[in-house]
C-alpha cells in the first residue's frame, strides 16, 4: 500500500542514469539484452527505486518489467510514440506507450488476468479504485474518467482487456483507437 513509491525523490537520480545507458541498446534492437540489463540494474538498486508507470519516465517500463517478473517482448517505434510490449508470467500482455518527451502516456493490457494495476498505474491507482461504482455498472465494463485519468476495460472471465491513459499527455496526432 504505502510502498516504495514514497521514496521517489531518492529513486529519481538513478532513473535518469539507467535511462541513458539502456535506451541506446533498445534502439539498436538488442531488446533482450536491454531488458536483462535493465532488470538486473533495477534489482541491484533494491527497494529504493521509484516505480510506477503511467505518467512516469520511460525508464519505469524497465522497473515494471523487473517488478512484474516479466520480459519485454518487443519495443516498436510508431509515428509519434514508442510501444513496449511486455509479456507477464501468467500470459497477459502489457503495452506501455511512451511519448516523445520520454513519459509513459498510456498503458494497455489483454489476457487471462489483469496486470498489477498498482504497479502500472502508479500514483493514479488510488484515484481509480476509490471511485464509487457508476450507475448501471455490470461486471464487464469500466469507463472511468476523473480529471486527466481515463481507465477503460472490457471482456469477460479468462479474457480481460483494458487501457489507461492521461488525456492531456497524449502526443499530437495519436489516434486513441491505436492504444490497445
Amino acid at each position, binding site marked *: 500500500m504505502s510502498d516504495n513509491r514514497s521514496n521517489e525523490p531518492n529513486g529519481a537520480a538513478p532513473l535518469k542514469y539507467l535511462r541513458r545507458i539502456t535506451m541506446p541498446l533498445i534502439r539498436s534492437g538488442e531488446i533482450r539484452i536491454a531488458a536483462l540489463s535493465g532488470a538486473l540494474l533495477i534489482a541491484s538498486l533494491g527497494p529504493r527505486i521509484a516505480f510506477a508507470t503511467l505518467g512516469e519516465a520511460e525508464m519505469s517500463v524497465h522497473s515494471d518489467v523487473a517488478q512484474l517478473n516479466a520480459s519485454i517482448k518487443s519495443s516498436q517505434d510508431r509515428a509519434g510514440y514508442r510501444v513496449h510490449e511486455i509479456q507477464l508470467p*501468467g500470459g497477459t500482455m502489457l503495452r506501455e506507450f511512451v511519448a516523445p518527451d520520454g513519459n509513459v502516456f498510456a498503458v494497455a493490457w489483454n489476457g487471462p488476468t489483469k496486470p498489477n494495476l498498482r504497479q502500472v498505474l502508479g500514483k493514479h491507482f488510488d484515484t481509480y479504485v476509490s*471511485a464509487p461504482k457508476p450507475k*448501471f455498472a455490470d*461486471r*464487464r465494463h469500466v469507463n472511468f474518467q476523473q480529471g486527466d485519468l481515463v481507465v477503460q476495460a472490457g471482456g*469477460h472471465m*479468462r479474457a480481460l482487456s483494458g487501457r489507461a491513459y492521461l488525456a492531456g499527455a497524449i502526443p499530437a496526432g495519436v489516434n486513441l483507437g491505436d492504444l490497445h
Partner: protein
Amino acid sequence: MALLGALRVCLGAALCVSVISCGGGGGGGGGGTTTPPPPPPTVNTTSVIVDQGPATGSGSVNTLFTSVTVCVPGSTTSCQTIDHIQVDTGSYGLRLLAPVLTLTLPVEKLSNGNSLAECTQFVDGYSWGPVASADLTIAGETAKSLPVQVIGDSRFTTVPSTCSSTGTQEDTVAKFGANGILGIGPFQLDCGDCDTVVHPQYYACATAANCVETLVPTAMQVPNPVTLFAADNNGIIIDLPTVAPAGAVTVSGQLIFGIDTQSNNQSGTQTVLTVDGNAELLMTFNGQTLAMSFIDSGSNGIYFADSSISTCTTTGLTTFYCPANTLSLGLSIQGANGVMVNNLVFTVGNLETMLNADPTFNVFPELAGTLPAGNAGSFDYGLAFFYGKRVAVAVEGNKTSVGTGPYIAF
C-alpha cells in the same frame, strides 16, 4: 442415495414442491435392491427472473437471477436456499457472498495442508475469498462436493497485495450487485491453465493472513457447476420471453439443464456457433470485423463502438447511447466453425427516454452502451440477446445432437 438426495433437496423450501412431484430426482440411480421401473426424469428446469436485484443491493438492470440451494457436503440439515444469484454465461463457477451465507462451508485444503483461496478477476474489480466445498442443488440437479468460492469470508480478511493491486474490491452484496453468481458459460473451469501456470488467481494460505499465488489441481479449481451434475451436464438452455421495446418491471423465464438429454431440452433447427479459445465469436458491425465479440447473459446492455450515435448527456449516463430516434441496426455473427448468422437486427433506444418512461423498470431490451475505441475488436451482446429466444450453451468437450461444445446455439 436417491432418498437422501430427495431429503436434502426438500430442505430447500423453494425447490421442494417440484422435487417431490417427480419422486426425488435422479440422484444417482445405484443402490436399489430390486430392479425398479425406469426412474422419472430429473427435474431439470428452474425459474429465472430479471428484477431490481437483491434487497441490500443498489438496483440493477438487465440482470438475470435464480435461486440455488447449498448444503454443507454430506449434510441434509445444514442447507440454505439463496435467492438473487446472477446467471452468467460469461463466467464459470458458483460464488456466494459470505454476508448472506448462514452456513459454514469447509475450505478446500491443498496437499500441503494450506487452505485454497481465490482472487476472482472481473473486468471492473476483484472478489476475494476461500474456495470451499458445498453440495449444490438447483432444479432437481445436484453437484456434490462442488468447489465454490465464498466471497468476503470473515475467515480470510487479508487480501494479498497481488490480488488487491488488480482493482476495486467487490466483496459485499451492494458492491457485487447479487447474493452470488452462477457461472455457466461454455468452458469447464474458471481458469484455463492454473494447474500449470501461476496467476494472481489461486492462492495457498498457510494462515488466513499469509496467502501466496499457487498452482492448483484442476479438480480443486472452481468449475462450471453443470459439469458436476450426475446428468444433464453437457450445457444449459436459457429461455426468456420477448419483452416490450419500452421495457418491463420484471421478466421471468426458464433455466434448463442439459442439451438433448430430456424431452424438454432437445435441439431443433437452431444455428450452432462454436466459440473460440476465449469463448468468443467474430461479429461484423458497420463494416468493422470484431474478432473478440461475445454473447453474454452477464452483460447488462448491448455494448459496441459507433461514434455516429449520440450518447446520453445526463451525468453518469454519458457512456450509454441516447439516439434521437430508436435505431434498427444490423449485425453478422460468425462462429469458429465458420457458421454465419447474417444481418441479425438489434435495436438501440434512448436510455434517458427509457428511464423517464417508467422509473420502476428493470428490463430494457434496447439499452446500449459504448465501447471505447481502444477496446475495438469487440461487440458485447448482453442479456438483451436472450430476450425472446431460447439460447443453448454447450460446455467444451460435450456432444449434443447438433454439435460439440464449446458452442452457443439459438
